[in-house]
């Protein structure tokens, strides 16, 4: 991430709503098209709800990102929760540990331009997604 980073604590439903709103604003300000803003916001929505559901608390970081001539939005969902033991399984469709919907990670991955995940049991989880302006 480059430049100013917005940090939104995530520990309750109101902060989830705030995180989604901020994602939409940053997306719009960066000049993403409306469909890309919707994808970014929905991805952020899924990720921060995962924080609430599995880690209870965490943080969303939003900022601009650049690579060569490309620029866009980077969103990072960070928590120090239980972590994910089997990341490959969590990224496979129809994987779930809490409720029938699962982590939604495969869906989030399909929705965004770039997706990275770091996690280990007891170490928390960091999911980074990027959307590039076209």
């Amino acid at each position, binding site marked *: 991430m480059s430049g100013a980073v917005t940090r939104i604590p995530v520990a309750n439903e*109101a902060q989830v709503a705030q995180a989604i709103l901020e994602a939409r604003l940053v997306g719009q300000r960066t000049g993403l098209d409306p469909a890309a803003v919707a994808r970014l916001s929905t991805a952020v*929505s899924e990720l921060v709800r995962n924080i609430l559901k599995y880690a209870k608390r965490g943080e969303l970081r939003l900022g601009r990102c650049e690579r060569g001539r490309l620029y866009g939005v980077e969103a990072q969902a960070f928590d120090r929760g239980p972590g994910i033991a089997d990341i490959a399984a969590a990224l496979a469709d129809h994987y779930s540990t809490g409720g029938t919907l699962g982590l939604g990670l495969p869906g989030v991955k399909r929705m965004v331009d770039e997706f990275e995940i770091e996690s280990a049991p007891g170490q928390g989880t960091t999911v980074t997604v990027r959307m590039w302006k076209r």
Partner: protein
Amino acid sequence: MIDDATRAHGIPLQLSRGRVIASIQLELTEPVLIRFRQDLLEFVRVHAATGVVVDLNGVEILDSEEFVALTRTLAMVRLLGAETVLAGMRPGVVACLVELGIDTDDTLAALDVDAAIDLLHDLDEARR
């Protein structure tokens, strides 16, 4: 006809020829969804409504939990005996729902409210 009880904080419910039209214009947070569920079920029962159209044209972001909460409410409405149709979902919303792998098989949908009313009419005809 707009129910005053739902005007203050909830989602406005309109009744027209036995159909309820619920136009969602605010973020579907959990309290909003819970309130909507209570209001809608009561409204359908009191007015003996035969169909419900939920207009989602004003919704720009709908995540998997919100969509599932909404479709559960519609399943309850169907158990009361009224048909349900989602109307006016935006392309960005439907793209995300499908990418998220959400089961939409039980959900009837239409392009807009008029098309949803027509669809309810066709369902009535088919049942006769």
